[in-house]
């Protein structure tokens, strides 16, 4: 297949390009016009046959210019590009309007197969009881005004995906990965928050909805392959991506700390910060009409989305994609640390 991969130079995108080419697919890799580097194909093929090729495509999704033409010959699109930082306008342009442009161009170019990458951030965590199983049926956040810009814009993006998928000419699967970890992304926002030179380690015993980047990338390529099959069983489906044997915060943090340097941490028990943030929100509502704005970890809507103890499953991903996460936690951290140190190639 020829896969059109947006966000191809990013943390996940570069692994998707590697996974796709390793499985023999050619990749049209969307690279922003001013970027000097382009993603590399895999070094080795999984199975028989040659490694796929990588053809960089120089477009910026925030503009429709050249987009439809750039999709020429693509069999399916894996849409990873999103703005993860910046103010709301920046993330709206980089995530929502970019997706609108891409979907419009796909329609124009007659490319109907889309692996749409969403996120666990779309779920409603504040109103979900602790210990609940977060599967694909879990409710998404219908009133995200107090969530961060990323969650708000990814929710809007999912609306666009669903509109696109409603057409008879399209084949759509929405993938919602949990926290994707890997090289340079081991110490992440589900462990806590930066506090000057230190790190507030929030909670200890919650299960982390993790997926290792190479595992996750392979699932995304598998989804593109499945979309191409006749009588496609995954068309219109939403699929969560998390690995097997998910660790607790403590287990994961200990393993990472043993492998790479981590910031000095201040532990904060989950019940303490949950109660404090709840009281702050109640006080804000009662005294200030909710007008006061506080850092993310002091806003329950955002805090619960990151640290609430919940349960997760990858049963649907395994069933529909035939996916088996290739690397376990310890091996994934080892590969990540080796890649960070530059002493080992995360080859496959």
């Amino acid at each position, binding site marked *: 297949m020829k896969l059109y991969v947006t966000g191809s130079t990013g943390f996940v995108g570069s692994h998707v390009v590697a996974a796709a080419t390793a499985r023999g697919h050619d990749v049209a890799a969307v690279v922003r*016009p*001013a970027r000097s580097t382009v993603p590399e194909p895999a070094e080795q093929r999984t199975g028989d046959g040659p490694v796929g090729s990588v053809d960089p495509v120089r477009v*910026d999704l925030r503009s429709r210019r050249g987009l439809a033409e750039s999709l020429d010959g693509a069999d399916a699109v894996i849409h990873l590009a999103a703005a993860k*930082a910046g*103010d709301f306008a920046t993330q709206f342009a980089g995530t929502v309007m970019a997706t*609108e442009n891409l979907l419009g161009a796909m329609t124009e170019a007659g490319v109907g197969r889309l692996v749409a990458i969403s996120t666990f951030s779309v779920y409603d965590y504040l109103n979900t009881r602790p210990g609940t199983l977060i599967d694909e049926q879990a409710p998404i956040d219908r009133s995200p005004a107090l969530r961060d810009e990323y969650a708000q814009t990814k929710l*809007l993006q999912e609306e*666009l995906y669903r509109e696109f998928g409603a057409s008879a000419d399209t084949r759509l699967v929405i993938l919602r990965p949990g926290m994707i970890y890997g090289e340079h992304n081991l110490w992440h926002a589900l462990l806590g928050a930066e506090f000057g030179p230190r790190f507030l380690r929030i909670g200890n015993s919650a299960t982390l909805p993790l997926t290792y980047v190479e595992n996750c990338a392979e699932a995304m390529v598998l989804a593109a392959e499945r979309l191409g099959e006749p009588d496609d069983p995954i068309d219109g489906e939403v699929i969560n991506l998390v690995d097997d044997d998910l660790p607790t915060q403590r287990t994961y943090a200990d393993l990472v700390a043993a492998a790479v340097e981590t910031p000095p941490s201040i532990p904060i028990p989950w019940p303490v910060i949950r109660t404090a943030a709840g009281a702050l929100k109640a006080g804000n509502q009662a005294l200030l009409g909710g007008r006061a*704005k506080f850092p993310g970890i002091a806003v329950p809507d955002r805090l619960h989305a990151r640290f609430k103890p919940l349960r997760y499953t990858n049963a649907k991903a395994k069933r529909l994609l035939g996916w088996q996460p290739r690397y376990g936690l310890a091996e994934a951290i080892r590969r990540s640390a080796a890649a960070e140190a530059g002493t080992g190639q995360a080859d496959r």
Partner: protein
Amino acid sequence: MTSTPARPALPLRAAVIGSGGISREHLGFLSGRLPSGRGVTTPVAGRIRLVGVADLSPVAARYGASQFGADRAYTDVAELLADAVPDVVHVLTPPQSHVALATQCLEAGAHVICEKPITTTAPELEALLATAETAGRVLTESHNYRFNRGVVALRDAIDRGELGTVREVEIRIALPVTDPGGRFGDPNLPSPIHDLPAGVIHDFTTHFTSVLLHLTGPVDFSRIAAAWSNHAGNPLFRYDNLDAVLIGDGASGPVHGRLRFDAGAAPDTFTVRVRGSGGWAETDLYQPYNRTVVPRPGGSQLSPIVNHVVNGASLVNDGVRNVARKILQQTPYEGLHRMLDLTYDALIAGTPPPVTAADMLAASRLVDRLLSDEVRL
């Protein structure tokens, strides 16, 4: 520009074209949903109804309309004008599109409130004002920083005579506009602002000249020297630095102006300082405070000490207020909201808007002169 001959029916029907970053401030005002009602003295309800949000992007138009309670979203301006029949249109698109869109709205019978710079040159503005005159509609431009509390306090101090005769106004803006992660520094999809004569600094020139002229009053700046530089040498930018000196004759004698823009200085700054024959005063619009140094009780010996004590107490007070401002999400756009509030008051009363055609022309002509070849260093 002509005022409306009769009082319009209320609520005024308002529409917005363009849903970029600044639209949230306009839409927040129009919907009455500003986080803290900053700068607005009269409730919007009953005065204004948000009838439409238009953007070329359907999802952007739809989102703006739904978030701010507009009646409908549009992707076509002609359809917005025909269907929503707005009394007032806020034109918030990139500067290059202002003339065409404002003309379309004026000719459809709507007043126009346009983001700065309303036009790229003063002759274009003259033509657009003529269009407004013919249409019998109001055309006004965001000179928003004139309406920030700090600048209002400076103007009040001048009007009360506390500073004596104004002799010098200095305005300094420091912002990291060349930052590759910022909205101007991204080389992948360069901002249209780079195509304007002053490049990215054109986004600030109206602020400079409108605040300067607001504080000096009418001045014929007969001598100007302007150094436009690109110190960092980033090829995306025409200039990242402006250093301009203006000298002219005001109503009460000579007046000096100094305008400084620096993309390399930190922290973010928008300071305005007025020096008069009787004292001086300053403010910063990004971290608001006001400091006034004037003759105080105690004569010439004690006056400097009293000034220190009074200003010290005032700075502490402003520090505490700025903490509250940050928590309550009050931003330097408080002046924009106050300007819009006063503009709608004027539209309803049929009086001239707070930013008049004369204000706009004077500010625009001064920008043209700062960019003219004969004043360049």
